[in-house]
């Protein structure tokens, strides 16, 4: 069972206090978008063995969504940050890069 820190209320809690929400930083494609773009938005998901950015909700706490950078293989949590952003904070990316030089980076 993971333990995660909610960046909104600052609490570190058990995984059972949170609800997972899949991949973070998806860009929504609506009416007028191409079939390919819409398919990518709706269905295509990264499934890396390694660094992954994902959505979590502090469902049984403050109720806020937040984002986490986590290694899917070792479960290391590099950091959590508020959901109101379209990309991970630069300092988090730098921190991951320092720990995992082989990581291809966020894109």
């Amino acid at each position, binding site marked *: *069972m993971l*333990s995660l820190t909610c960046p909104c209320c600052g609490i570190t809690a058990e995984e059972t206090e949170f609800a997972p*929400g899949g991949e973070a930083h998806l860009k929504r*494609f609506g009416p007028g978008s191409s079939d390919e773009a*819409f398919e990518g938005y709706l269905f295509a998901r990264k499934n890396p063995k390694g660094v992954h950015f994902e959505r979590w909700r502090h469902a049984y706490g403050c109720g806020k969504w937040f984002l986490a950078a986590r290694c899917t293989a070792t479960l*290391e949590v590099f950091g959590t940050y508020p*959901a*109101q952003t379209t990309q991970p904070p630069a300092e988090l990316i730098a921190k991951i890069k320092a720990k995992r030089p082989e990581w291809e980076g966020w894109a």
Partner: protein
Amino acid sequence: MSTRLAKGGRLIDRAKPLNFTFNGKPMRGFAGDTLASALLGAGQVMVGRSFKYHRPRGIVASGAEEPNALVGLGRNARFEPDQRTTTTELFEGAETRSQNHWPSLDFDIGEINDRLYKFFPAGFYYKTFMAPRAAWKHLFEPIIRKSAGLGGVPKEADPDRYEQAYAHCDVLVAGGGVAGLAAALREGRAGKRVWLVEQSAHWGGRTPVDDGQIDGVEAEDWIAAALEELESLANVTMRTRFMAAGLYDHGYVIGYESVADATPGDGRPRHRLWRIRAGLTITATGAIERPLAFAGNDVPGVMLASAVRDYIVNWAVSPGDRTVIVTNNDDAYRTALALLDAGLTVPTIVDAREETHGALPQEVKARGVRVLEGRGIARVLGRSRVTGVEICAQAGEGGAVETIACDCVAMSGGWSPVVHLWSHCGGKLIWDEPRAMFRPDPSRPPTGADGAAMATVAGAANGDLTLAETMAGFGIGACSHDEAALAPVWMMPAGATDALRYKAFLDFQNDVKVSDVQLAAREGYTSVEHTKRYTTLGMATDQGKLSNINGLAVLSDALGQPIPATGTTTFRPPYTPISLGAITGEARGDLFQPLRRTPIQSWHEAQGAHWEPVGHWRRPYCYPRKGESHSDAVGREITNTRKNVGMLDASTLGKIVVKGPDAGRFLDMLYTNMMSTLPVGKCRYGLMCNENGFLMDDGVVARLSEDMWLCHTTSGGADRIHGWMEDWLQCEWWDWKVYVANLTEQFAQIAVVGPKARALLERLGGMDVSKEALPFMHWAEGKLGDFDARIFRISFSGELSYEIAVPASQGLALWETLMAEGEALGVMPYGTEALHVMRAEKGFIMIGDETDGTVIPQDLGLSWAISKKKADFLGKRAQERSHMTDPNRWKLVGLETLDGSVIPDGSHAPAEGYNANGQRNTQGRVTSTYYSPTIGKGIALGLVLNGPDRMGEVIEFTGEGETQIKARIVETCFYDKEGEKQDV
């Protein structure tokens, strides 16, 4: 014959004798005994039969690794099978029963399996049950079911109580031997919050049984001093009878505490399950001695060498008068010293090594014990009890050179570190060639949330088998006998014949022999994980604690590869089985699941309502009267509602307030239709789709003020839809100024439905509920009688209908007032089934019936509720996809059976021909189907190919069994098609 010695026994209290029974026979032990030591002390060597061959089996070990000595313990509701006698403490009145035999332990029919061993090779089940198919059902399955399982199952509910608890610490030390004590001292002195846990009832591990000095004093004195200091440290918590069962993600440890096992029914919880968050776990879990694989190594009286000396030193129990020791290492010679000190006979030590020059062998030889070098045991003599051993050359094929009479064999194949906790969450092992063991690889530990090691290892668990090595890890001086190197022995003798290998057991509990593993290798099972499953090696309740290393060494040999190339199987928690009661904790009976109650629930209960679960709610399905069937009650409730007036507790309906300057814009994105244009004071039915275009919820939206809307959702969907709204507001449109609040439980809601509904409300007085003041699809606020009411003119039944929302605290009083005032009008409550039938009669859809996650609103004739004007809403892009606009999508229609019967739920309409999978083609399916008391026949809603274009056509649906039911395709609305009744 095993017996109790007259003197000694460091763990027993001879002043406190305890009575117990074994298979009904009265026996006596002492406080401090385990069931195993008490049984041995009472002379009971054979304690059960093996699972597959029903061979007689005795106690092998003295701890958690015991594979054989499992018994049924207790009686009736407190009966529990498979209790490990070596770790179960004896208590007064304990009733124990042996397992796996019929009719008795001494005479057993199933023993015939042992004579037929050649017909039960590895993979027997897989091979036998390949074919034919019918044989499985009629022959194999009944036999397997009868003989499957280890021990019996209690037939009554568990009367005991179980608890769960949480703990947080900086350091968890797993294991209370000298390594664990030293680790806890080091961490405790440094001011860390420490939990020190030990699975047995005693501190100190096995060091007090073996020899040695620590820090210049006898080991037992050092242990006593360490305990005294630890107990004085406020930051150290110490628990015995507490197993660290598993290490999981991010330093999460499951602890299993035995609280009242030895005092059944004393009111305390029997077990406690702990969820511990540890910053660091130090695994000081010790090591387990390995058996040797020789023919007859499972005959009662063959035991681990360490267990033999444990029984002598700890419990003053002699496993036998004449004990032959067979070993490949020096440590087993300690057992000879313990036997000699107890005045027992060691006729011979059989050492597989060519030379024995270590300090321990020298000391034993000096006491006059004969040591045979380069020798092994060819076979054990005796069946239900050891009577002797045949000695052979270890290098040979097993030709006997000598027979030695004995009644006990103490075997030692070396030691394996207990690496379970280390391995559970990803810690890796390395093969230590000189010591012939897998031990934790310090460079590849399990890692935690920060990516750093979350476990370290100390003492024998790290492969530091001598006291000096263990204490050196803590910078503490210690000394014991120096030990010479062991010689790995995986099969005895090295060239054992087929006949011997057929009786050389690796896994005692699952009856897996050397020959089985070799057969698996020959048949192509080269992966250790496959071999495990094919032979069942290590799959018994002991999870291979004794067998795994020997088994994979035999497999490696058969495959001609080194042991590390074969690797180990996966170590999975828990370390030893934990009770289902502990896992369940308090979550049973009424506490199994929380129940959501409406403010009117007590009234329904008093009426004897028949319930329907809806999410965590329980809603009245119907209110049967005395002697009335449920279907009759539903019919009565519908007819009365349509003729007079009915009342429904609609409090479970989701009620979400959406407020803010951007609330209208937000709702326009959420709903398929336009909500921003809804005038204040009016209601509008709306649909919500997911981004895949599929219909996910529906309900009536009311605009409460210029910037505030109230969204009704389905009863089961309130929390999900509230979460859905929060998700979009927090993660996509976070700059929109909108707040949402789920007020579902803040309001009670009562539907007053039927032609006399208005008359009923008017009897309460207060606000004007006339058609003019409160028209259909409007809402109004005011006083209804004494109640603070918000009344919605909405209808899910087609009748004149008022849904009255009041603060939850007023709900029950309003319900009772309406019931009392309505008596003269013939008011009756109605339940969810009447609600369902009435909505189906009107052709209204129900989320979960007409929708299943693949249905779009267009399928249901709801295109009128999809805005053409809006540039965007959730699901709009998806509904533009070619498959969504395909004219061949099945569409919703009404169905009327020709013979008046009711089409079964889930029924399909077959079409001509078969598909590529050989399945009958279909042209439609039923989504809702009821008997309509209003129409007087079976009606249904269903999705049918080109349905709306086929009005009047008769198609067939599958009925019960092979029957077909003819139904006519009609409009979805069966009742009051013009909608006049609801708009009066």
